[in-house]
């Protein structure tokens, strides 16, 4: 018995798991048998490891027949599930093996093989469509589920064919499959199913994907049915219509303001509590109806970011008339929703022209909230008072910042910075009295800088030596307001700070400082920073010299690409690309072979933006095989943009085996966008 064999039969599950990992590199004659055994191990961690190895070696070791056997046997459920997982991971690569094995599989086991076909992509669709009519109801059911997993017009058509099935279970499977595919099915096709109590809920859900405005009254009527289930499904479907936009969403938006009171009452009760989906949908419909009694629910959902931007648009359209109802409801809400209600009221007041009394009511609510014991409330109030505050407000803002440094200091600082434009003396009185340090100092410093003048400049310079690096960093970031040679000098000092973030801030500032003619002032300092030790400082400097067009840094940037720090290399390559470095091409071949995905992506961008050569498309196409989805996706996108010899073939070949939905979509877009000359 080999050492590996012994380990894989050990009593200790962890030892078995490690042995399975080793198995991938084994040349033992019985390795296939050992791996199949591991797929059926009693411990899930061993099975998981075996699934990974089996996926890797399935084709090379000729493992597919053994996997089919594992899938179809009936004694070891763990083995069956593991085999199914391997087929899922293999995707279309296993399609042929599964189709070949199908006729020989015992009837009771066919459903498992059919389920595996559901992971095998388009090659299995015709067979699955045929099997969806199989005499064995389990096989037919599995085929419908597999079709729903694969999708595409042919699968949709097959599923649609079963909506009229005599078997209610098949009708339900077809409905659920079409829902999963988000298929648009004509109302006339669904209408008969709405009378079937067993499947009515699924049918209502599917109406959410309908484009026909006639689905709107059907769903609104369903809200009134007895029992909560149908109302939930109808509300969900209404929400889905709104998310998808289109004619039925427009019909619902038009209809909403004239909803009758019983419908509003049902929607209010759905909006008030319960499952998230119906709650969100009901709230959205009532916002379109401009029902003031939904604003509390809207604030609760908005506080947790559970209302999508398109739903929030309904409040924007409502406009200034919603401000007072929002202020009215705010007082009844818990702190976070109350904060959201105040924020929304302030947003509406900022873009609209509310009456003076409404603005005063808003200010009063904000001041009360700023003084509250709840930091989240005080933070929201501080932020809004930047827009609506008056000269009396800065002291309260500073006090709130000091009371809750973690949560309120930053919004209070931003508010004071804005108020410095309209209430300069009040802000100066509030912020320049004390030493600025710590998180509060860091937060208030931009307001000090906004004041300008000798006192503010003195305070800013003093803060460059604060104890807390956050305050020093804030002071550095404020230096562009000072401008000129003095700012360059101070930022240069900050390059020698012991804190990396302060140094990085100094580099960013040096990259921004220019003279009156727009010429960069920080070039010499930035060249020094390119030789600094800390990675973020060097990376920031590399970006800054590129942005400043400093071709004198080309040699240093080339060295940075090759020296082995990925974050620095990415930044340096970005700049070399911006500077149009003629020697960049040599660096790119090496960069494409690096393990860091960001570095490979930047190399791809550089290749794509470089001059057109016969080698460009093949080089980019190499990255279509990269292990990281984002690299493959970028390669596909760039090939679509640049085209070139072999681009279409490379993309089409990759599409066959690509399982990542995002990458597949990018490849399809690229193929559609390829210029005609790239064909052939």
């Amino acid at each position, binding site marked *: 018995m080999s050492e590996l064999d012994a380990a894989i039969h050990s009593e200790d599950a962890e030892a078995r798991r490690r042995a399975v990992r080793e198995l991938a590199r084994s040349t033992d004659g019985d390795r296939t048998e050992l791996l199949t055994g591991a797929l059926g191990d009693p411990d*899930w961690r061993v099975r998981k490891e075996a699934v990974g190895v089996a996926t890797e070696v399935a084709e090379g070791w000729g493992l597919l027949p053994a996997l089919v056997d594992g899938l179809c046997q009936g004694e070891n459920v763990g083995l069956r599930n593991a085999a199914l997982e391997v087929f899922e991971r293999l995707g279309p690569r296993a399609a042929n093996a599964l189709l070949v094995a199908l006729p020989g599989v015992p009837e009771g086991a066919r459903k498992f093989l059919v389920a595996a076909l559901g992971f095998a992509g388009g090659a299995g669709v015709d067979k699955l469509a045929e099997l969806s009519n199989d005499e064995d109801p389990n096989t037919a059911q599995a085929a419908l589920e597999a079709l729903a997993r694969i999708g595409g017009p042919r699968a949709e058509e097959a599923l649609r064919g079963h909506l009229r099935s005599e078997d209610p279970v098949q009708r339900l499977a077809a409905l659920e499959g079409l829902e999963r595919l988000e298929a648009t099915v004509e109302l006339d096709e669904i209408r008969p199913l709405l009378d079937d109590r067993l499947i009515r809920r699924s049918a209502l859900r599917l109406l959410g994907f309908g484009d026909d405005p006639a689905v709107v009254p059907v769903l609104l009527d369903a809200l009134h049915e007895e029992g909560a289930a149908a109302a939930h499904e109808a509300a969900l479907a209404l929400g889905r219509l709104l998310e998808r936009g289109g004619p039925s969403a427009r019909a619902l938006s038009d209809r909403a303001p004239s909803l009758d009171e019983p419908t509003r009452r049902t929607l209010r009760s759905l909006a008030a509590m319960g499952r998230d989906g119906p709650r969100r949908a009901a709230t959205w419909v009532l916002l379109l109806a401009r029902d003031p009694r939904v604003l509390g629910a809207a604030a609760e959902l*908005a506080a*947790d*970011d559970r209302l*999508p*931007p398109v739903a*929030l648009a309904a*409040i*924007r359209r409502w406009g200034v008339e919603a401000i007072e109802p929002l202020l009215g409801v705010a007082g009844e809400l*818990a*702190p*976070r929703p109350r904060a*959201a209600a105040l*924020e*929304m009221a302030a*947003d*509406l007041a900022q*873009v609209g022209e509310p009456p003076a009394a409404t603005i005063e009511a808003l200010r009063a609510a904000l001041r009360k909230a700023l003084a*509250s*014991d*709840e*930091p989240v409330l005080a933070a*929201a109030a501080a*932020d809004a008072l930047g827009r609506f505050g008056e000269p009396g407000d800065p002291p309260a803002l500073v006090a709130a910042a000091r009371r809750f440094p*973690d949560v309120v200091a*930053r*919004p209070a600082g931003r508010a004071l910075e804005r108020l410095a434009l309209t209430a300069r003396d009040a802000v100066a009185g509030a912020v320049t009295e004390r030493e600025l340090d710590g998180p509060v100092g860091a937060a208030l410093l931009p307001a000090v800088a906004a004041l300008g003048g000798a006192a503010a400049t003195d305070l800013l310079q003093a803060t460059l030596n604060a104890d807390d690096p956050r305050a020093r960093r804030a002071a550095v*970031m404020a230096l562009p307001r000072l401008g000129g040679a003095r700012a360059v000098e101070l930022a240069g000092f900050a390059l020698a700070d012991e804190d*990396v*973030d302060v140094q990085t*801030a100094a580099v*960013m500032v040096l990259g921004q400082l220019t003279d009156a003619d727009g010429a960069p002032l920080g070039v010499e300092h930035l060249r020094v920073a390119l030789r600094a030790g*800390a*990675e*973020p400082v060097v*990376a920031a400097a590399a970006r800054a010299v590129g942005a400043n067009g400093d071709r004198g840094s080309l040699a240093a940037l080339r060295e940075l690409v090759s020296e082995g*720090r*990925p*974050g*620095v290399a*990415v930044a340096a390559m970005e700049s070399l690309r911006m500077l149009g470095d003629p020697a960049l091409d040599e660096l790119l071949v090496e960069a494409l072979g690096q393990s860091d995905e*960001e570095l490979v992506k930047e190399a791809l961008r550089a290749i794509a933006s470089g001059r057109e050569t016969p080698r460009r498309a093949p080089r980019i196409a190499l990255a279509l095989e990269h292990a990281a*989805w*984002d690299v493959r*996706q970028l390669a596909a996108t760039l090939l679509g943009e640049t085209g070139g010899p072999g681009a279409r073939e490379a993309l089409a070949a990759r599409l066959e085996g690509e399982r990542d939905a*995002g990458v597949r979509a990018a490849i399809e877009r690229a193929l559609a966008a390829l210029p005609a000359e790239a064909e052939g």
Partner: protein
Amino acid sequence: MSILFDSGPTLAPDEFRLLRELINRFCGMDFSDDALYVFERRLRDRVRELGLDDFTQYYHHLRYHPNAKAEIEAAVDALVTNETYFFREDYQLRAFRQEILPELRERLDKENRRNLTIWSAGCSTGEEVYTLAILVDDSGLFDGWDVRIFGNDISRRVLAVARRAHYGPSSFRAMPRRYLRYFADDAEGRQVVPHIRAMCHFGHLNLLDHDRSALIGRADAVFCRNVLIYFDEAARRRVIDTFYQRLHPGGYLLLGHSESLLNSTTAFELVHLSTDMVYRRPLPPPVMSHEPEER
């Protein structure tokens, strides 16, 4: 910050996916596709705070900056709603007070132990930790024992709040008035009284860090409520495995009302209590005779 109007950099779907995957690798949290908007809104402040222009730069910061780990923690803190309150899900706390604590007392007596350890995993701002300490104290079952309630979280900010033990009105929304005696009013609100605070300990711990969780020692009960909902299946398995390892045999695992171990592990046994169902690490079977283990 504006709820109704976009302000600041927008998050592209690819950037969202990269950030989501990076956070998942770091702490096991799993965000759905529709969380793009949540990421965009809640991480914008982080992008601004760091002086960065866009989310790609932020992703690079999280990948390459020497303090990237601290920034990922800050991102997680911004993304997760940490809101909690005293005596949350009181039906479960009743079961804990009336059935689990007496059972633990009886069993620990038999084992001649006079120490009780409870772990609140993902304790947020500390309300659950202090609630458990109050319940143990109020029960009178462990007077004079060495009682430790340990709370951990991945966010340093919430741990700082927990250690201060000062709470505003919303933290008390579900607390029966009779427990007010465990708090002292002061200018900042209410603070937990010193003898309860002395029972409680807080630590910074990523639940996926199996090795560091050994710092907690063995626990008699683990509360992990409304935390696993954020995790993907693989991470959930790892965390539950950690709980299993850290519990004494016979120790209890209490999850949130919408959470279960279905599909995750079979190592725990389900225990039906009068107002709740909880999980327990099985006790070893009693030794009936001294037969040799191998023949």
